[in-house]
């Protein structure tokens, strides 16, 4: 798998035809020089490996089994995913025992996981926690945690949002004092099963935001599973009462956390693109086997046209997700805008695709037994996770306008 992200293998492109003015010119200049618009053969091969693994281990029967459990994942599958495929260490540099790949490969994995709706702490541990450490952790903290995160031996998560449900580190209220945290975090992905929680907290009131590590067994930590719309992604509320915590970042972790969350948003955008693709495929497949009035329903023009629009929707979502991943891999200046564009675009598309997929299934699509609702619920939760589409559109405008 070496060389997966070798930039020289990527396709380069001629200038676009439509002229863009103002700042967009700069965006475009970037596109011309550094963005990839196709996956390399190695990346495609990698995708197939991931696909095959998920085909074997994340059928909807598996998803349904896992979503009914408290921890929401299968330890065996997790071990294989970490050990055999090395996915848990995908973006961890080789010096810390990882694979040293970039955001494009992470996007591929997330897209496939979104398609298969894998139930596992991948997003919490291998994305959120890992990226937070990579982007804001001290060398010592990285040395301490990354090897075990990369091997999958340790499952961690990141706790940023509080009561208001904002993932902007600037909105963090929780205060760290005397090596201990007090307060509440909400919407913590896999917060009930993670073994270490990285917590964004302020060094005293009005102080800078730092990143703190808290052991799941620490004194004064109470964890409670939240009742969630999407049972395939577990969320928890964490209460800290003078809970011992270790600072694992420099004194001001805000920029690092913001970057980590942007990269996580791109990963989530790729997951949503995969989910949207699954919804399209399911809808089209169904219309090509379902007979009504003596005809395949896929032969009704109104259904055909809905599917055509859905395909457009999904392909635009994929483009936004891929492009943002490529920008992140290149550490492109436009990363902030492209991350928000991808997050907003893909979550709208995933939601619309899920709605359309239920609709095209008719009554059966509204049942528990049929699988569409599993993706519908993921779409609903991904729509607002890490910020709503409207929030990200506004962020995008702050960078582009």
């Amino acid at each position, binding site marked *: 798998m070496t060389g997966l992200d070798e930039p020289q293998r990527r396709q380069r492109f001629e200038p676009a035809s439509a002229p863009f003015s103002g700042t967009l010119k700069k965006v475009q200049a970037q596109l011309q020089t550094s963005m990839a618009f196709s996956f390399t053969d190695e990346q495609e091969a990698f995708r197939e490996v991931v696909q095959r693994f998920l085909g074997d281990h994340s059928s909807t029967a598996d998803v349904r089994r896992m979503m009914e459990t408290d921890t929401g994942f299968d330890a065996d599958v997790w071990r294989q995913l970490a050990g055999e495929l090395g996915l848990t260490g995908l973006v961890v540099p080789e010096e810390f025992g990882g694979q040293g790949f970039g955001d494009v490969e992470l996007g591929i994995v997330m897209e496939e996981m979104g398609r298969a709706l894998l139930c596992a702490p991948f997003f919490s541990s291998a994305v959120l926690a890992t990226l937070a450490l990579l982007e804001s952790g001290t060398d010592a903290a990285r040395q301490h945690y990354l090897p075990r995160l990369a091997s999958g031996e340790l499952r961690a998560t990141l706790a940023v*949002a509080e009561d*208001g*449900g*904002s993932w902007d580190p600037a909105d963090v209220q929780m205060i760290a004092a005397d090596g201990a945290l007090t307060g509440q975090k*909400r*919407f913590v992905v896999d917060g009930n099963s993670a073994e270490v929680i990285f917590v964004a907290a302020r060094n005293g009131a009005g102080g800078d935001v730092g990143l703190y590590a808290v052991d799941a067994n620490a004194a004064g930590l109470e964890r409670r599973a*939240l*009742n*969630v*719309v*999407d049972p395939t992604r577990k*969320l928890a*509320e964490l209460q800290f009462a003078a809970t011992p915590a270790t600072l694992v970042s420099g004194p001001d972790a805000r920029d690092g956390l913001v970057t980590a969350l942007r990269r996580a948003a791109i990963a989530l955008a790729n997951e949503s693109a995969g989910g949207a693709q699954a919804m399209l495929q399911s809808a089209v497949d*169904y219309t090509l*086997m*379902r*007979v*009504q*009035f*003596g*005809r395949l329903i896929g032969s*009704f023009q*109104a*259904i055909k046209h809905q599917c055509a629009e859905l395909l457009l929707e999904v392909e635009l979502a994929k483009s936004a997700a891929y492009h943002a991943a490529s920008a992140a891999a290149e550490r492109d200046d436009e990363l902030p805008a492209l991350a928000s564009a991808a997050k907003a675009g893909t979550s709208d598309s995933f939601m619309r695709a899920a*709605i359309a997929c*239920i*609709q095209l*299934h*008719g*009554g*059966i*699509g*509204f*049942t*528990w*037994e*049929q699988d*569409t*609702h599993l993706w*519908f*619920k993921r779409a*609903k*939760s991904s*729509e*607002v*996770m890490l910020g*709503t589409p*409207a929030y990200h559109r*506004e962020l995008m405008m702050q960078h582009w306008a």
Partner: protein
Amino acid sequence: MTEMSEDQVRADVRAWLAENWDPNLGLIEWRNRLADSGWGMPAWPSEWHGRGLPVGMAPVVEEEFQRIRAVGVARSGVRMLVAATLLEHGTEAHKAKFLRRILTGEDTWCQLFSEPGSGSDLAGLTTRAEQVGNQWVVNGQKVWSTSAHKADWGVLLARTDWDEPKHQGLSYFVIDMSQPGVEARPLRQMNGHASFNEVFMTDAAVPPDMLVGERGEGWAIATTTLMHERRNADSLRTWTTGVGGDERIYQEEAEEIATAMAPYTWYPQRAGRVDMVLDRARATGKLEDPVVRQEIAKLLIMSKSAEWTARRARAAQQLGRPQGPEGSLGKLASSHVARAAAHVHTLISGSDAMLAGADGPEDGIIAEILLSVPATSIAGGTDEIQRNIISERVLKMPKEHRVDTGRPFNEVRKNTVG
């Protein structure tokens, strides 16, 4: 039957009630009195638990019942539709056997029409009823039957003649739900509720006298039922306004209502709960957000316009004017409103839109909206079917080319399901 004046009717019912009404009676005992006297269903024929009064007199009788808070006949579920069908198409034996216990509430009924494969194409159903010896033997699967697991009897639409065109090969039966060949399983929906049942019939037996109407008339008879269903779509609201009270009969009625209403608790959420939007926006502070305000305004304009459109239709109807296009549009409008409402509720709730039950906003109501709204554009006719109907019946555009009618059902491609 001679014409009676409104005053005469009012005096009669008042006198009878004064004589008979007693809130300390048992519910069934009281309703037997209603069935005997005919005052429970004044517009039904006098030989069948009614008084043969004009339909227009029913409100007068109802007013007198309400005045003294007297309880009426049982009305929950599909019983009134079944009763209307049996009154119109049933034999004397059917009426004798079923009508009284429908009114008293002793028997509960379910409707076995839809099938997993039928969807928008009800007439394409494939449940099979065959004459074997002196019985009909039924095999097949039904779905979307409310409360079938509690029902004593079902009205069943099954295919008896496969060489006839699809609409002509169906027959209408009454089936005993308590027999071993009938199994009702709750069908869970994506919002977690199980308001409906799947019903599996395996060599289920129907005696020959439980055929309603003639063999092959099933579609015509079922259409009667469906028309009643449409006409009575609002009746849910009417009969659930139990007045309540400490006396025995009110206690028993409250229990009956609670049981009957259980499958419907999520129905208001399905429509999107536009009524909650402003309060929710206020409570979350999102009412200050100009972007949210725009989306709320769009929703309210659409929702109020849809409501005004429905009122225009009703006003035209009440004035006896020809039905304008506005009447056919409500169902489609409600889909748009529900979907827009779910979008707005998500916008308002932000991260909280991920939470359900006690952790979710409004004690889980918001989550229930988000997970129920997809039913609005499907149940009772999908948006696609509504658009067909509107374009063909209102706009008089050409009908879809049919490949499934006018030839033996055996030769038609059968409905399949995923």
